[in-house]
């Protein structure tokens, strides 16, 4: 498959379709997007079974949580540390399929399945965990072999310079995105975001997820200790999922700002139209 670097020497006319994303990247992107959506939504249902998070080895109803999604009557309440937020209709209380207000941490339209079933949510979550983990492993190996990691995601020494990063931040804030051939290369912020997901958030979610299993904990006791105990690991698991949600929001915003049709087409078909150079250069 062609990679961005393959076009560096050519001079395609603007708007000429060029190959952008490899098959491996496109395949993994969409499989992983669907898998992460299922993992998140089934995970929120599992969270609903005990909507409290703790630090340390243990944590149950008589222990103090650092985060709790509960309710006071019909008022949904999120408690984070000492802060109390009223979140009726969304977190803590929300309407069921018949429009009746129910006490539930995450609303039915965010969970798999939509009506309470811890067993079914676990069935989905644990089955798709294999797709997530094996998919990531296969993609990383494939990307190592075909040079995607080295050519497209590797952050060079020049890119690490604060000046370069700051320049990319300013360009993003001014909503000035690379045009012409430069649009084929990932910017440093893009690389940081993608590497953060590939090597940071998803592996963290997988490893902390493993430590929620009593079987794994017996076999790999150091792993759960690495995260500070099972309840800390559960909290980190939740925070990693939150991190992936934040990535998703920014990712979608960037796609919308950079030209959604062109961007989505490139991720589906591999073909990308080079954006025209700006008149002001």
């Amino acid at each position: 498959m062609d990679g961005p670097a393959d076009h560096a020497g050519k001079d395609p006319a603007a708007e000429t379709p060029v190959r952008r994303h490899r098959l491996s990247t496109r395949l993994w992107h969409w499989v992983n997007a669907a898998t992460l959506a299922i993992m998140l939504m089934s995970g929120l249902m599992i969270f609903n079974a005990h909507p409290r998070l703790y630090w340390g080895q243990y944590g149950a109803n008589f222990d103090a949580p650092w985060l709790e999604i509960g309710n006071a009557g019909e008022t949904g309440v999120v408690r984070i540390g000492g802060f109390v937020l009223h979140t009726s209709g969304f977190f803590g209380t929300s309407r069921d399929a018949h429009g009746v207000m129910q006490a539930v941490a995450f609303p039915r339209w965010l969970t798999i399945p939509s009506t309470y079933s811890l067993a079914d949510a676990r069935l989905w979550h644990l089955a798709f965990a294999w797709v997530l983990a094996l998919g990531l492993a296969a993609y990383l190996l494939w990307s190592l072999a075909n040079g995607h990691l080295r050519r497209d995601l590797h952050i060079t020494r020049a890119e690490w310079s604060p000046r370069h990063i700051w320049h990319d931040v300013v360009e993003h804030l001014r909503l000035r995105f690379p045009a012409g051939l430069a649009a084929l290369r990932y910017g440093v912020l893009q690389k940081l975001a993608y590497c953060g997901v590939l090597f940071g958030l998803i592996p963290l979610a997988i490893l902390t997820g493993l430590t929620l299993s009593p079987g794994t904990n017996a076999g790999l006791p150091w792993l759960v200790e690495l995260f500070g105990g099972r309840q800390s690991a559960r909290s980190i698991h939740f925070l990693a999922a939150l991190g992936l949600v934040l990535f998703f929001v920014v990712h979608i915003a960037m796609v919308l700002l950079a030209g959604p049709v062109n961007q989505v087409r490139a991720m589906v078909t591999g073909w990308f139209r080079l954006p025209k150079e700006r008149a002001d250069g």
Partner: protein
Amino acid sequence: MDERLSRRRLLGAGVMGAGGLLLSGCDKLNGTPGFRALLESAEKAHQGSQRLIAGAALAREFAPGDMSPVFRANGNRDAAGNAEWSGHLASGFPNWKLRVDGLVLRPLDLSLEALRALPRRTQITRHDCVEGWSAIGQWSGTQLGPVLKAAGLLPAARYIVFHCADRFGDAPYYESIDLIDAFHPQTILADTMNGRALPVDHGAPLRLRVERQLGYKQAKYVMRIEARSSLAGLYGGKGGYWEDRYDYAWYAGI
């Protein structure tokens, strides 16, 4: 600009539509037998990989200082609906006996005193509920392995079933484990919790501790242990109350 805006709106509608489809699609798939069977087939992979990782390893044991200040009791808090158990509770369990039968050479009826004469173990372990919470407590009791050896398991025995005195509605609680967990050294019939006789809300007079599995496997109010070749034909056939009634996984090491 107009074209761009309408494209944006179209894409936005597309994303919302896809979200809605995903949600209703997942609910539909969740009720489709073929798809459920596919998801359930992953349970064999969970069990196989977990057994590979854990081998014969022990669950971590903690120091007394690590224990939960309050150990939450969950599920049934007594077995008051069971007249036999209630009678034993009223007298303090002196005449209570654990029945060991099924595929064994010598069916046994063991009093608490007789159980205490067999090899025992004390362990401070973390109890992980399927809901997500954890509590650390100390358990003492007779190891299950020597009890099964005393009864003499027949070669056909594959599962150990725990019949309990408590009920949910008219469904009696029961649970089952395989022989790997049955002969694991930390698998005990606990009569003591945190240094005192097992409290009623934690399953007096005897409960199972199978430390490498989730809370719903830790059967309370155990009255009878039965060795079986298969779980089929017993209640719902899935090997436990939660498994039969709510489709919880039989292997709860994950």
